[in-house]
C-alpha cells in the first residue's frame, strides 16, 4: 500500500475516533465524580440534530457547534436535576435521558432529513501543517479535533494535578466523606454532568458537521454507548481513553474499508464488529478487574442524599 492510502485511512480513523473521544472524555469526568450517566447516546444524538439545525439556522458550522454544545448541556442538566436533586436511580434516569434525547432529536431533525449539510472547515495550523506526513495527519483538521486532544491533556492535568481535580475524585470516591468535610457534592456533580453533556453534544455535532455532514435519524448508532464502555476500558484514565477511542475508531473504519474492498463476509457481520469488539473488551477489562483493586470510583452509580 502506498503512503497516500495509509494516510487516507489514518485520517478517516481520526475522524471516526474523535466523536468517541469527545463523548468518552466527558463521561470520564462525570464518572470520576461518582455519577454514571447512561444518557450519553441521547445527549450525542441531540447534539447531532442541534448541530445540524444550528448550522442551517445560523448559516455557519460554528453556529452548529455552539448549538450542539448547548443542546448536550441542556439535556444533561435535565438528567442532573433528577439524579442530584431528586436522587432518582442513575441507571434508569440515564436511560430516560437517552430515550428522551432520541425523541427530541427525531423531532428536531424531522425537517432536515435529506438536506445538504454545512461541513466544519479545516483549520490548518501555520507552519506545522506543512510538515511532511505529520502535517496532514495532525495539523490539518477542524477545531473539534484539536479540542478533543486538548481535552485529554487538560482533563488529565486537572484531575491529577489540581485541587479541583482532587475534589472531583474525592467526591467520586466517598460522597459522604466529602459532604462531611464541607464540600458541596451536588454542586460539583452538577458541574461535571454539564461538562459531560457539553462533550457529548459536541461529539454529536461532530457527526452531523464533520463525519457525515447531514442529518440521518439514529445517526449516533450506539456510539454513545460505546463511549460509556470506553471509560470502563480506560480504567477512568484520560490517556487510556485516548488510546481506546482510537482503537475503536480503527475498528469502525476498517470494517467500512473491508466492506468497500469486497471482503467475502456479509456486510452486516462486519457492521456488528464494533459492538462485538466493545463486548469483548468489556469482558477482558472486567475479568482483569475482578482479581485486582477496582479502578472504578467507589461511589459510581450511588444516589447521594445528604440528610441521611
Amino acid at each position, binding site marked *: 500500500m502506498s503512503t497516500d492510502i495509509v494516510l487516507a485511512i489514518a485520517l478517516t480513523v481520526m475522524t471516526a475516533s474523535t466523536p468517541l473521544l469527545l463523548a468518552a472524555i466527558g463521561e470520564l469526568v462525570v464518572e470520576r465524580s461518582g455519577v454514571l450517566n447512561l444518557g450519553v447516546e441521547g445527549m450525542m444524538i441531540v447534539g447531532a440534530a442541534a448541530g445540524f439545525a444550528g448550522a442551517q439556522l445560523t448559516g455557519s458550522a460554528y453556529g452548529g457547534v455552539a448549538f450542539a454544545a448547548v443542546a448536550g448541556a441542556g439535556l444533561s442538566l435535565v438528567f442532573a436535576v433528577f439524579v442530584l436533586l431528586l436522587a432518582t436511580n442513575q441507571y434508569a434516569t440515564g436511560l430516560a435521558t437517552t430515550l428522551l434525547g432520541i425523541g427530541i432529536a427525531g423531532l428536531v431533525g424531522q425537517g432536515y432529513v435529506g438536506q445538504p449539510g454545512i461541513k466544519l472547515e479545516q483549520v490548518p495550523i501555520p507552519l506545522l501543517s506543512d510538515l511532511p506526513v505529520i502535517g496532514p495527519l495532525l495539523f490539518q483538521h477542524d477545531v473539534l479535533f484539536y479540542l478533543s486532544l486538548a481535552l485529554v491533556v487538560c482533563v488529565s492535568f486537572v484531575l491529577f494535578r489540581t*485541587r479541583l481535580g*482532587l475534589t472531583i475524585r474525592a467526591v467520586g470516591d*466517598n460522597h459522604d*466523606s*466529602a459532604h462531611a468535610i*464541607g464540600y458541596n457534592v451536588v454542586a460539583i456533580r452538577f458541574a461535571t454532568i454539564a461538562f459531560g453533556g457539553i462533550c457529548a453534544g459536541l461529539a454529536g455535532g461532530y457527526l452531523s458537521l464533520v463525519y457525515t455532514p447531514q442529518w440521518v435519524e439514529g445517526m449516533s448508532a450506539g456510539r454513545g454507548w460505546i463511549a460509556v464502555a470506553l471509560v470502563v476500558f480506560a480504567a477512568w484514565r484520560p490517556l487510556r481513553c485516548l488510546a481506546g477511542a482510537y482503537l475503536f475508531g480503527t475498528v469502525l473504519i476498517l470494517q467500512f474499508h473491508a466492506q468497500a474492498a469486497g471482503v467475502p463476509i456479509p456486510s452486516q457481520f462486519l457492521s456488528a464488529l464494533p459492538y462485538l469488539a466493545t463486548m469483548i473488551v468489556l469482558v477482558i477489562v472486567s475479568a482483569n478487574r475482578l482479581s485486582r*483493586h477496582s479502578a472504578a470510583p*467507589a461511589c459510581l452509580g450511588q444516589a447521594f442524599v445528604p440528610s441521611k
Partner: protein
Amino acid sequence: MTSPSSKLLATTDVTKFFGSFCANDRISLDVDAGEIHALLGENGAGKSTFVKALYGLVRPDSGTITWKGERVEITSPARARELGIGMVFQHFALFDSLNVAENIALALPQDVAVSDVVARLDEITARYGLALNAEAAVGDLSAGERQRIEIVRCLMQSPTLIILDEPTSVLTPQEADQLFVTLRQLVNEGRSIIYISHKLEEVQRLCDRATILRHGRVVANCDPRTTEKGELARLMVGDLVHAARPSGSAAADGIALSVRALSMSAPSLFGVDLQDISLDVRPGQICAIAGIAGNGQSELFEALSGERLSNDPAAITLLGQPVGHLGIAERRQLGADFVSDERLGHATAPDMSLSDNVLVTRARTDTDLMRSGVLKLERARSLSQRIQDSFDVRSGAVDPPANALSGGNLQKFVIGRAVDRHPRVLVVNQPTWGVDAGAAARIRKTLVSLAEGGSAIVVISQDLDEIFEIADSIAVIARGRLTALYPADQMSAEEIGLWMSDAEAGASQRANSTFQTAGVGLDNND
C-alpha cells in the same frame, strides 16, 4: 475552680430537639484552657449531638455558646475552625482511593497545595509521634493510622480546642496508649480537649474533669480521677440489671461446633486472610472471640455461617457432620443459626417488613412457612409477632420495615429471630454493638439462657466487659489468626488486650507459661 473569664468555652442551656425527641436538654458545660474534659455517657445520651453543635454541624434550638469570653454563633464547621475548634470524628471522613497527603489537603482551605501538605505533614508527625506515610493509599491503612490522619487534619489548622468522639473505639489498647501520649502533649502546649467516651477506665486515666450525660441531660460534673468507677457507671447508665452468667455453669460433653485448621484467603483487597483456625465448642458453652475490629471477625463469621464456603468439607463440623462445603441455608437446616454484626443490610433487608425479614432466615428452616415454594405470609406475620412479643421488640406499628426500628429493638428482633428456633449452635457477631444498655442486658440474658438450655454459642465481640460477663471461655483473634480457647476465669483484660495486637505472640507466650498462673508473662512485660 478558675474564674469564668478564664474559661475557654462555656455553654449555657444548649437545647436541641429532633422532632419531638429531645437530644440535648439544657446542657451547660465549661472547658478550661489546657484541660482534658471528658463527656461521658451511654450511646444515645446526646454526646454526639452536643459536640456537633459546638462544631457547627447542628444548630441548637436554644442556649448560648461563649468562646474566650465572647458569645458566638457557630453556624458551620468552617466557622468553628476559624474560631479554633477542631474535631476528630468517630466515623472518619476519609477517601480510600486517595493517598494520605491528598486526604489531608482535602480538609484544608482551597489554596493549600498537596505539596505544602507533605512538608507540614513531616513536621507534625515528627513533633507528635504520629507516624504517617504521605504517599500511602488510605484504603490500605489500619484503623489507628486512619485516625492519625484525622488528627493531623485537625492539627494542621492549629486548633485551641480539639473534640475527639470515641477515639479509642477502633484502637488496640496499645494504640490507645500511644494516642494518650499525643493528647497529653497537645494539652501541655496549652490546647484543650473535649474527650467523648463511654469507657470509664480511660477517662479516669486521661481526663481532668468529666461531665456526665444521660438521656440528653447533664447528670453530674466530677473529677474522674477521684470518683470511683462504680459511681461513674451508676451515673452514666442509671440502675441496671446485669445478666450475670451463673458461676460454674457446666457445659455438656461432646462437640457441637468444631473448626479444624481452617484457612481462607480474603474475599477482597482490604479483607483479612484466615489462617489455620481451630476451635471446639461444646453444647452449653458460651465461647467468646475477642479482638479489635478488622482482624478477621467478619471473615470468620462468614466462614462459620457458610456465606463463604471452604474447600475442605471437614474444616468445619457441625453436630458431627462436615459442613465446610454447605451453604448458610443448609447449615441452618442442620440446627445452627447465625446473627451478623450488621443489623441493617446484612441481617435484615432495611426496606422490607419484619415479617418478610423473618422469611430471610426462617423460610427454609420452618416447614410451616413455605409449601412447595409458595410462601405462607400469614404465618410469617404471626411468627414475626411472636418474636416481637417474646423479645420485647417495640416497633410502634404493625409489621414495620426493618429500618423503622431503633438499633436496640432491631437487634432484639434479629437475636430473637434466631433464638426463637432454639438453634443447637448459635454464632453471634457483636451481639450488642451500638445498642442501648437495656437492650444489651436483655440480649445477654437471652444468650445465657439459650446456653443453659444446651446450645453451643460463639460470641464474636469487641467488648471485653461483655465477654467477661457472659462467656465461659475466650479466644482472641488478631490478623486472621485465632488463639486457643482458654477458660474465662483464667484470663485478664490486660492479657487479652496484648493478644489482640498480636495473637501469635500472645499464644506462644501463653504456651511458654502454661504451667504458671495466668498473667505472669504480662507482669514481666510491665
